[in-house]
């Protein structure tokens, strides 16, 4: 919480240790909707060479996010992911490239 009472969600940059950052390939994960609310950050950097690896890393660091949206290397029903703002992906075996961005979001639109 900031002095003015706002949560840090707007900036949402998570402080990560050098040790953690040095592990494996890094991708940016942008969070929307429930995933953002559970993680408490708008985006973070995660480790993993596959989508499933990234999910495991996220669940370890953001237990509430993991419990609500992830099941091991998979997404729970009601959630989906998008690679680079282009392609929707859910297969945990999908290989990622250094610097990729993954969007994690609630599935349904509408309203």
């Amino acid at each position, binding site marked *: 919480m900031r002095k003015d*009472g*706002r*949560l840090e*969600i*707007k900036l949402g940059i998570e402080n990560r240790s050098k040790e953690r950052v040095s592990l494996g390939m890094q991708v940016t994960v*942008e969070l*929307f*909707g*429930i995933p*953002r*609310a559970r993680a408490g950050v*708008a985006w973070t950097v995660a480790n993993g060479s596959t989508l499933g690896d990234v999910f495991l890393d996220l669940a370890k660091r953001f237990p509430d996010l993991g419990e*609500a*949206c992830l099941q091991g290397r998979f997404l*729970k*029903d*009601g*959630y*989906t992911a*998008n690679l680079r*703002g*282009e*392609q*929707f*992906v*859910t*297969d945990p075996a999908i290989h990622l490239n250094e610097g990729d961005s993954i*969007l994690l*979001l*609630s*599935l*349904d*639109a*509408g*309203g």
Partner: protein
Amino acid sequence: MKGTQSCSCRWTRAAKFKGPRAEKNSLMHPIFGYHGRYLRVDLSTGLSTEILLETQLLREYLGGSGLGVALMLKEGAAALNPLAPEAVLAFVFSPLVGSPLTTSAKFAVVSKSPLTERLNDSLASSGFALAGKKTGYDAIVLVGRAEKLSILLIDEHRVRLESAEDLVGFSNRKTQENLLRRFGPEFQTATIGPAGERLVPYATISHDGRHAGRGGSGAVLGSKNIKAIAVRGTRRVAWASPPALMSLAKKLSKKSFGPATAKYRELGTASNLLMFNRLNVLPTRNFQQGSFENAAAISPEELNVTRDRTRSSCAACTIGCEHLYSLKSGDGSVRLEYENLFALGPLCGIDNAEIVLEATRRCDDAGIDTISAGGTIGFAMECAERGLLDAPWLRFGDGNALLRSLDSIVSGKEIGPLLAMGSRRMAMEIGQDSIRFAPQVKGLELPGYDPRGLQMMALGFAVSTRGADHNRSGAYEVDFSEAVDRRNVGPESAHLAVETEDKAALMDSLILCKFLRGIFADLFEESAEILSLVTGWEVTAKELRATAQRIVTAKKRFNILAGWTPSEDTLPLRMLQNALPEDSESHLSAERLASLIKAYNLARGWSEEGWLPLGQAASLPVG
């Protein structure tokens, strides 16, 4: 009008309706889930007629939108001027209304649209559906025109008119407060605001702060000189298998608390905003862009920490998707949905949350569709900035200009009469090829999904019988999946748009809220179980698939009778000529859209252009 008339009576003021009750349908078989009749009120003559509904018709069209379109075809409404006295307006309930099933307290308002001149079916929720069905009718059909502005009271079998001349110009809020004092809480009311009285073709019908919003049903009610309908009753229907239905309802309610609805429950639909913005599909400044630089300022994530928020839900709903945000003026709170946020925000270039909330409140009070209002004003802003419209004060991003425009629509002053036409008619008035960027399909303004980056939704918009619409076609669900490349959708995927449209037709006819859709593993299979427990019919998923297709075809039939031609199934030229500036991959050519439409029509079993085969047309209800 064909149908089996059981009894009729002409009202005198407060006269009691007398006549036999039809506890069984005309074949004398008990009907579970239905009353088996509807009430037809001629507001010109005062004649109220109770008309029996055949079991076969109910089974083939269910209720809500489906039964509504069947009644419109039977009434021959397609050929009528939607604002003429003889025009038909139906409030339609469903077999699930009054059941313990979550989100089932819904009703459909069906008519020919004064905005599109095509079929319009808009849905709303809550107590009006419950009380309306308890009057003892599966639908209330209005024809004719009252002599002066009136309230139609349906107190079970008693039908009467009361003067509403003291309510002229009243907002929906004030009207509903007045009627609550006048008639008491047992009556549930559906009202129009001043926009409906002025016959604005995108006026809404409001109940308890919610709206049957799109396509101008409020203008149709206004054209009948009806300010409000008040309903009350005690007649309940029986269910075929009450214990099993209760058990299933409990399971459904439990599932409705799960992850598939968490977004709606915790954040509301407005949480789409930032995600759509990130994907460059957030329509901005009259669809000139797909992202809004200040989206964060009006996002619910921001509003949640700067304003008080309360939650609400419709009657008989366990989701509770409604999120109301306080106005800083201290003047209450406003229900915020993604569609009004996008239409009165980015679409008009507005990044001031207080303005968006105030504009939303003015739309709700006046009874105008926020999507069509924002779409039309955004279009006018672009026309003004291009010098096509002499309104130098009307600029993107100017909150006061937005509020002034909304007020003018309601008052009929200044630019109001032009804005009140909706974007299509306004473009025809302005000329100078402005129609190419008027944000509409069949006259209905586009909701908040840029079709260039969501091309399955583009197909849904183009072919929808209601015009550009996200509720009758949920094709965006396919775009937000691995099934297609949303920026390069091919005709081989057109059947997926058919599937989402059929699902919507089923849910809108049962009726269940679409926010439940994520909890069904197989909507048709599980709906068949629900309907079987309610009605006692041995319904299968296969039958419901056929039912959904029949309902969509009936809507198309209505439109054909109303003058539809294949050239209507398209998108604004801008969207077929210009890629989104933020994303050159988001480009949809006219040729590709045409191939999608052709594939869609063939998947429906229609001609390539979308005409119905003789056999399909012949099997539909006729007047």
